[in-house]
């Protein structure tokens, strides 16, 4: 799998929300999208997911422009977990995960599809909750169900919009570890939009910094996410500490207004 994003721009009601975004992503690579609220992270992820199309530029997956690929085939390659998710009152956990197999199901559901659902749930330690109703779960458990749904889709590229926003710190680490293992095992690529810069530090191979719809940095997290960059993009003063566990970024106060 190779994803190449070339000069992608997006207009919403004559407002430029993404401008000239270019980067690429290979197998088993994790790209973190960081940037303040409204910087265009979700828009970029939705554009790659095929939820809406870009205004300019091209997105190619394995050399094919995603606009020319049959949506059903694209669904087999790209799995997307939105920031806000919906579910119906009477749907259960495994039914929700089963939706990830939609493009493989004609009418009845084969044992193989059910096994994949079971595996995805087990991977996130949610197997025992398969029969629960969605509204019986906590916010974090629900988020894991939606991640399991994307796993069941078995794509080559995962797109996660704030996948850990509702999770407590333990689940955040567990889910990120699981996702990193999966990208390695399957050779899948992953793009995640995150607010927690330390998650980007620890798990991302590459980081793309967005600010006002433009790229404000691209490269290895440790090299790009410096206090200078954070100050410029977020308006926050921070420092980096380094110990035997790695490098950590500590934001501590908002900049004085310029």
């Amino acid at each position: 799998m190779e994803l190449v994003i070339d000069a992608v721009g997006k207009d919403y009601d004559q407002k430029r929300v993404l401008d000239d975004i270019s980067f690429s992503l290979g197998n088993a690579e994790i790209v973190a999208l960081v940037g303040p609220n409204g910087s265009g992270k979700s828009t970029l992820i939705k554009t790659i997911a095929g939820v809406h199309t870009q205004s300019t530029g091209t997105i190619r997956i394995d050399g094919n422009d995603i606009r020319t690929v049959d949506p059903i085939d694209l669904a087999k390659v790209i799995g997307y977990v939105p920031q806000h998710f919906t579910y119906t009152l009477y749907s259960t956990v495994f039914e929700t995960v089963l939706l990830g197999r939609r493009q493989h199901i004609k009418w009845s559901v084969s044992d193989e599809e059910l096994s994949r659902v079971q595996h995805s749930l087990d991977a996130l330690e949610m197997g025992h909750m398969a029969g629960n109703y969605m509204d019986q779960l906590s916010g974090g458990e629900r988020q894991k169900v939606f991640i399991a749904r994307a796993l069941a889709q078995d794509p080559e590229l995962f797109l996660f919009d704030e996948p850990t926003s509702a999770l407590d710190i333990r689940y955040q680490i567990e889910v990120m570890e699981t996702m990193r293992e999966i990208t390695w095992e399957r050779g899948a690529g992953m793009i995640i939009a995150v607010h927690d810069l330390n998650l980007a530090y620890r798990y991302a191979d590459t980081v793309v910094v967005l600010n006002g719809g433009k790229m404000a940095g691209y490269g290895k997290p440790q090299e790009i996410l410096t206090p200078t960059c954070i100050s410029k993009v977020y308006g926050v003063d921070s420092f980096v500490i380094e110990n035997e566990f790695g490098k950590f970024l500590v934001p501590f106060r908002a900049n004085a207004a310029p």
Partner: protein
Amino acid sequence: MEEIHKPLTPKKVTVHSLYKEGSTRRIALIIGLSLLVIMAAVISAGIGTVPISPMDTILAIGHSCAVMLQNFLHTYLPSIGAWYDTIPVSIPAPSNPQAELIVVGFRLPRIFLAILTGISLAVAGAVMQGLLRNPLVSPFTLGLSSAASFGAALAIVLGPGILVSYFLLSYDMWIVVFAFLFGWLSMLLVYWISRSRGTTQSTLILAGVVIGYLFTAGVMALKYTTNNEKLRELMVWLMGGMWGASWSAVLLLIPLVVICFYLLERKAWDLNALSAGDDVAKNLGINVERLRLSGLMISTFAASCCLAFTGIIGFIGLMGPHICRMFIGSDHRYLIPCAGLMGAAILLISDTVARTIMSPVEIPVGIIMYAIGGVFFLFLIMRGRGRGLY
């Protein structure tokens, strides 16, 4: 020695077992509801101003089918007809000489109309609720009923004079045609309005509600300006009922309802995927706008076909799907047929009660249906969380 203290290992719940168990229960419910509808139909055919025994009811239906088949064969396929006459077994005519006329001529078309209307309204409601991910959506809330009312009211107020003299259709048919056309038109309007703002579910719902009010204004204006006699006719239509039942209506509706049901049932998986949100559905390769347009058009078509003959029948489009969701969950593959059968059962039973409870006087079916259905639904809600009842 026998091992008595064998440790009890709890049965491991797997996705496979959950799925199989769920499917079996859902299919059992669908079969159960089908039997309920058939039983209700047979009982309903037997009771009324002239009571007819169940045996006579079945004989009346069987005998007239046999006679009809015989006539058909003799007219079009005389060679098979001659062979048919040699079959030694025959269905005897019912002991009550009037039974055939009453059962086949009057009651059966009415029963069929109730079943077809119940199916199409509840299926339309289930699909609309799924498409718009909103539990309060029904043919009522999307303005369809108001628009159909306006169409019927217009036909009634314009009156037989103008319409019948220019065109060949009878006055009653004009009411049907107007009600259908306006019902159908309402959904086109809703879609056209919402397209200007992007067809998200909230714009569609708001557009539907607004269109509903506009047509309600039209109906009120017509009510206010029309004379007494027509006003009464209009009120009867607005209350709804199975008075318009006839074999020609039933034979027209059967293929339409069957085709619409088939087309909607084919969208079941897409509707399931839509429950995870528009964005996820799009990522799963579904053209959400097209699904909404075609789903709404087909379900509106089915609902307005039936409403045109029966007048305004509320409740079923909203409650049929809800009751079924409580029983079997939200997998549309099962929900759509189940809701249809539930709708048919509710409407048929209500209509039977409405025409027999104060026999020979008939009362509007709405009075019975809202009462029975409302109490039943309240009962379901009040039993805990309204889930896992089955």
